[in-house]
């Protein structure tokens, strides 16, 4: 594997990794948020708009995180606090994101968004004489570094801290956790807020790092692929890291083949990530057990 391919793998994996880690926390708390796709789209839009308005890409990333948190608040207020169906609320979030960002981007830029300042790799030419992995690592944007660091931190936080234990307890057996005095709704809502903040930041990686502009529906299913990554990664931080790298690598390979112009029609290339995700799910589903209370709204009086 060439150095350039490794570098591209990590670069393309970064948004998936960030979003999937966010979803990992959410699902470990027993909530499925398919609104992660829309949350990413909001993040991509708000991050881009703020970066354009302020001229500062980091400000855009911060705003994207904040926007993600707000969307998470919307999701949590219906799906966690009111106990509405998580899939339905997630679908609404996705539709809202598609509609609202399209409306706003056309109102702001009349269908032709400008270019924003970009989050570039910090060390541009450095690291040429480092061993393979070192150079590929060093030439990344902070998105990739944050993703890698968060993957390690998530693994530790979920499995070696009290808060992580409580979070997993809520996702595994909400009633038992409640009986032990763990506040189920608060824990779940907090997980959703954190996870959505990460999804928002992941979205800004699309509009401020992988590209420098916003286009309608630019997440193009990456949020859904992140959902699949959590399953493929068996609801573990290390698994999520490897699954994200797998998808990043597949995308990097796809771009390379596409550039080489092998005689395959263009739409076929575009279809590949989704077919790959389906294939991976067909192999990986059912191999690992999902959190016990995943997707089940918790109501105390239902006992």
């Amino acid at each position, binding site marked *: 594997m060439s150095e350039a391919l490794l570098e591209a793998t990590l670069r393309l994996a970064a948004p998936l990794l960030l979003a999937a880690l966010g979803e990992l926390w959410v699902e470990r708390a027993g909530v*499925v948020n*398919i609104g992660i796709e829309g949350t990413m789209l909001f993040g991509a839009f708000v991050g881009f708009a703020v970066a354009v308005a302020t001229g500062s890409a980091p400000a855009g990333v911060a705003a994207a995180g904040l926007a993600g948190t707000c969307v998470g608040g919307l999701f949590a207020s*219906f799906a966690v606090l*009111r*106990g*509405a*169906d998580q*899939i*339905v*609320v997630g*679908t*609404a*979030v996705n*539709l*809202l994101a*598609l*509609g*609202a960002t*399209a*409306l*706003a981007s*056309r*109102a702001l830029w009349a269908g032709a968004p400008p270019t924003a300042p970009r989050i570039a790799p910090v060390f541009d030419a450095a690291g040429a004489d480092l061993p393979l992995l070192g150079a590929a690592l060093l030439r990344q944007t902070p998105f990739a570094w944050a993703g890698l660091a968060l993957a390690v931190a998530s693994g530790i936080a979920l499995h070696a801290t009290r808060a992580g234990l409580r979070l997993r307890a809520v996702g595994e057996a909400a009633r038992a956790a409640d009986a032990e005095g763990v506040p189920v709704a608060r824990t779940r809502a907090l997980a959703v807020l954190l996870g959505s903040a990460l999804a928002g930041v992941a979205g800004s990686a699309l509009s401020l790092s992988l590209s420098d502009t916003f286009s*309608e529906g630019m997440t*193009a*299913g990456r949020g*859904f692929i992140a*959902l*699949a990554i959590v*399953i493929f990664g068996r609801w573990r931080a290390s698994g999520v890291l490897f699954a994200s790298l797998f998808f990043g690598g597949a995308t990097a390979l796809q771009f390379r083949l596409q550039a080489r112009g092998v005689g395959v*029609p*263009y*739409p*076929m290339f*575009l*279809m590949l990530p*989704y*077919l790959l*995700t*389906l294939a991976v*799910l*067909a*192999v990986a*589903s*059912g191999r690992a057990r999902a959190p016990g209370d995943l997707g089940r*709204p918790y*109501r105390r009086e*239902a006992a």
Partner: protein
Amino acid sequence: MTRALASAVAGLVCVAAAIALLGYAPGPALRALVAGSLLGPAAWTATLLKTAPLLLTGLAVALCFRCGVWNIGAEGQLLAGALAATALATRGPVGAPAWLLGPAAILAGALGGALFGAAAGLLRSLRGVSEVISTILLNFVAIHCVALAVQGPLREVAGAYPQSDALPIAAQLPALGRVHAGVLLALGLALAVHWLLFHGSVGFRLRAVGLSPRAARFAGIAPERYGALALALGGALAGLAGACEVTGVTRRLYEGLSPGYGYTAIAVALLGRLHPLALIPSALFFGALEAGAGAMQREVGVPAEATKVVQAVVILLSTALSVGRAGSRRARAAEAAR
């Protein structure tokens, strides 16, 4: 009923606020919305033409939701149906009579949609793949399949644009006044799905699985099998919507054929509280909205995407308002059956 109306009205209010916030004049925009959907025969035609695919895809979603299966893939199933119908009509037997080619194209559409639905159903029942994710992913697959087809095997003979040839007259849906026969087909199928769900034994089992898979299993009903069946049936309904679009409205296959009918379908199904007959007024509401939004975009320049905001608000409110009533009753039943 009042709750459904309340959420519909709230959705409209939200979009009016959004339009004003974005600097469009809300007065003319709303006037265009109403005029383009309700005032005069041309507006009614537009509304009915949008209602047909929304009713069919809405039924596809509702049928699956009733069985506890989250079919978010009506959009892809619709496109698969449109693709299959076009393939048969433009690449099938030349000179086939209308009595044969018309129904055959419609049937091909249903099969195409059913194939996509069944793919998700089989992944679910055989491999345990969550249908939420698989149906969504299949939407993207279908979008690119259509692109592949119109750039390759189904591309028009003239070769000027990435679109199919015009469907032969023999394959086109007969006209019913200003609209096409697909509107009638959709209404008929709403009755048929109602009958199936509430008067047929298959429908009874589908609903039993939806209310409690575990209780259904004790009663000798295999939940996985019925889940897959629901997805295949739902796929067929959505595929019919796609077939009716190409044979009755667009007369060609091209990319961007559907303005997201399959996603709006979720709002249609939820506003109609998953009841096939209640889906008729619900589809009419969203059909009118879609038609009005088209007029609003043409005349005032407000992007038609505004309708998605209305759909989101309606979905949120119709679920939020149903929680604590039927919603929690169902949840309690599911809980008790665990």
